[in-house]
């Protein structure tokens, strides 16, 4: 008992249990079994197995960091890592035992013991605090009965049904296969394998922490690159497909899975690259900052040119499927940049951004459709409607801004949320059905035609999105550094003080809402042209939430942050389609982790960094 109280053992125990709970949870929701379907390296390791190893590895590595801070030696860290690994496997082992025919009685026993144990612990506590004898006995009985009803019924269910699946449907044979490393019929061997792998991963975590920084960085880099390429094998193959001939591709991939030898090669190459970077990267950066300003500008310029070239060539490099994803990302970048004017610059929490998206999409749909709802055959082209969509969205933004001008913060958010819902209801209403088709929506929207070429592929549409994004980016950078931008900044900081500075806050807010809406309209129009049909179902509150999330995850008021946020929150889920519902679990987990570990976003803007630093330091020393 005393040993458990030492800080070292507590660290090991808590991290191990945390990782164990993670494995147990992902197993119970079916993630491990689903991830097992995707092989990272052909016939070597699956994503599910990787998850099983990654948890103890990371836990042991974190444990080593903490043990190091407690002044524990390298050997003890190795031991600690092994123990963390064993503890990580424990909850899964227990569940395996409960799930097996031979050891089901253990579950039965546990369930039947729980009420008595809980009641006794509680009674002891009452006893220690000197309660009345009758009260102690009374509460003991009450607890046994109350908890007993629940646990005994579960025991009964398990006895009748014969396995755990009646309560935990994902504790399936597939799951057992993964966690026992295909030893379903030899349970003891399977458990032993799990413990061995888990302890090994834990030990690796402890060891990796103790190797010198340069090779460690190289190793982690190599592992990371290889596993990422393996995990996103399908995506990587799609990219290679564009640039490599079929036979080579066949040697690298077996269907979507990375073969063993290329994986090994990739690991070696990326480790060496990581090693070189770890050795000389610092020097290179140092050399760069010490260059003459003109030279440095030249290097920067070359970098920018390469980047611009890559942006322009992107569709050819990544092929059709990924270009489609890129267009979707671009549409959301467009909306992110727009919403950022309201949220990031002016501090107006707008949760109804989907309104502008819907207005833009429907304007384009109705004006250009060649289906039954389009009565204006061929009069309007895509290019004519884009400015109209922009204007219409601005009008919508203006109209919806007027009633909420006096609202602030949370109230504003709720009101705008309502507007988003109103638009959704209007789109599906019978009242507007003759015009916009109600639930059937508008069909047969022609693709844009540019110089006689029909832009029907995502590779071509990509350039429209790119151009629109660049224009928006330019405008928003200019706005940020303008008098208007400073007005918004002042309003975001303190509306009353802004007024006291002579700023007409009502006008500035109207302007922010209106300009913010503009790009939403363009994004909607491009979306409509891309998909070719517009349904009310496409315009839900989730669009608003997605745009807001990508701004926050990327870094509020930071333009590069918005691009990164869109790639992570919109692009990754598209690439992970095969994991269906688990995408949203991961999406949610990412949001929570980001908000705890990096609230300023991936690429924070200068202002927000100010704010966070100010939050740490701003203890006004009164007697200064």
């Amino acid at each position, binding site marked *: 008992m005393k040993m458990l109280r030492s800080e070292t053992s507590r660290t090991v125990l808590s991290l191990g249990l945390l990782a164990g709970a993670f494995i147990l949870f992902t197993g119970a929701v079916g993630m491990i079994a689903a991830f097992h379907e995707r092989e990272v390296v052909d016939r070597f390791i699956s994503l599910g197995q990787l998850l099983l190893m990654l948890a103890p590895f990371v836990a042991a590595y974190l444990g080593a960091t903490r043990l190091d801070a407690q002044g524990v030696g390298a050997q003890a860290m190795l031991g600690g890592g092994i123990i963390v690994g064993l503890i990580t496997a424990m909850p899964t082992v227990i569940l395996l035992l409960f799930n097996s025919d031979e050891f089901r009685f253990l579950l039965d026993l546990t369930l039947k013991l729980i009420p008595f144990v809980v009641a006794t612990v509680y009674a002891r506590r009452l006893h220690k605090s000197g309660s009345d004898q009758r009260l102690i006995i009374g509460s003991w009985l009450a607890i046994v009965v109350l908890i007993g009803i629940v646990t005994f019924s579960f025991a009964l269910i398990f006895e009748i049904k014969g396995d755990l699946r009646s309560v935990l449907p994902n504790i399936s044979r597939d799951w057992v296969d993964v966690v026992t490393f295909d030893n379903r019929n030899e349970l003891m061997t399977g458990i032993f394998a799990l413990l061995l792998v888990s302890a090994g991963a834990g030990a690796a975590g402890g060891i990796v922490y103790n190797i010198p920084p340069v090779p460690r960085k190289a190793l982690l880099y190599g592992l990371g690159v290889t596993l990422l390429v393996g995990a996103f094998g399908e995506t990587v193959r799609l990219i290679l497909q564009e640039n490599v001939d079929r036979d080579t591709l066949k040697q690298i991939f077996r269907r979507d899975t990375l073969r063993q030898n290329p994986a090994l090669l990739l690991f070696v190459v990326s480790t060496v690259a990581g090693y070189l970077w770890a050795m000389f990267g610092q020097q290179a950066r140092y050399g760069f900052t010490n260059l003459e300003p003109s030279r440095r500008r030249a290097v920067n310029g070359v970098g920018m040119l390469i980047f611009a070239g890559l942006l322009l060539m992107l569709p050819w490099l990544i092929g059709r499927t990924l270009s489609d994803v890129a267009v979707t990302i671009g549409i959301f970048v467009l909306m992110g940049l727009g919403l950022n004017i309201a949220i990031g610059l002016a501090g107006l929490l707008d949760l109804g951004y989907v309104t502008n998206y819907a207005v833009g999409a429907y304007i384009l749909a109705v004006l250009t459709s060649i289906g039954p709802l389009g009565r204006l055959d061929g009069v309007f082209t895509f290019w004519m409607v884009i400015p109209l969509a922009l204007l219409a969205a601005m009008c919508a933004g203006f109209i919806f801004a007027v009633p909420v001008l006096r609202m602030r913060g949370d109230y504003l958010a709720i009101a705008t949320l309502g507007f988003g819902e109103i638009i959704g209801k209007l789109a599906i209403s019978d009242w507007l059905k003759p015009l916009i088709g109600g639930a059937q929506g508008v069909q047969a929207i022609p693709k844009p035609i540019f110089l006689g070429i029909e832009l029907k592929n995502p590779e071509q549409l990509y350039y429209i999105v790119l151009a629109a994004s660049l224009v928006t980016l330019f405008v928003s950078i200019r706005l940020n550094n303008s*008098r208007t931008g*400073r*007005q918004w*900044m*002042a309003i975001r*900081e*303190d509306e*009353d*003080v802004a*007024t*006291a*500075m*002579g*700023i*007409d*806050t009502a006008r500035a807010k109207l302007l922010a809402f209106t300009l913010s809406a503009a790009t939403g309209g363009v994004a909607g129009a491009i979306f409509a042209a891309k998909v070719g049909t517009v349904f009310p179902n496409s315009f839900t509150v989730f669009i608003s939430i997605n745009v807001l999330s990508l701004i926050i995850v990327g870094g509020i008021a930071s333009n590069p942050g918005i691009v990164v946020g869109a790639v992570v929150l919109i692009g990754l889920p598209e690439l992970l389609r095969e994991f269906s519902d688990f995408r949203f679990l991961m999406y949610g987990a990412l949001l929570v982790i980001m908000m705890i570990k990096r609230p300023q976003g991936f690429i924070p803007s200068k*202002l927000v960094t*100010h*704010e966070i*630093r*100010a*939050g740490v*330091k*701003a203890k*006004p*020393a*009164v*007697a*200064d």
Partner: protein
Amino acid sequence: MALLEVNDIHTYYGNIHALKGVSFEVDSGEIIALIGSNGAGKTTTLRTICGLMAPRDGSVLYDGEDISAARADTLVGKGISMVPEGRGVFAKLTVEENLDMGAFTRRDAGVKDDLKGAYELFPRLEERKRQVAGTLSGGEQQMLAIARALMAKPRLLLLDEPSMGLAPVLVDGVFDTVQRIANEGVTILLVEQNAHMALQIADRGYVLQSGEVAISDTAANLRENETVQKTYLGID
């Protein structure tokens, strides 16, 4: 003629009758102190004058013009500048950006010179002009708030509790500064709980009590007034 004339104003927070007919005058070049305890209506009076709240009854005349219905942001251009309660500096902007915001309504070429003037008045701010305002100490933030209000080149400066939350050493400094600003010809309306300090630099003073002017007199007389001494100066 008085620069500012407040005639029998009644201001409400919803149904709460906060100001029950407050009247007073501020002449050009004067320092006027409004003193009173918490909830007497001092800040409400200031907010009503500068347009953040509208009086339900009564009028506010500035330079002979009725401004009781004017919007707050338009008054800055007319020469009324306010240092809000709790300083209200823009915490995320640098000192210099804050000062720039103060000159927001101005488009004349004199802004640069005035920035220099502000740094002469507060050398401390020049040392920290690239620092983010939120990291300044309380005293420095107060200086910044005053300097920012001066950047609008006001004729009338409204100060809301400039001594609030400051150490006694710093309070002296703040009142010194206010005196110096007044010497340059800016008319000052000062709202203060620290009656002792306020009445030392003021020409005249008004004592507010539950939304009404209870006493009005010269500052010298108020310092000697028995009620004022007992209630606001802590002298028995």
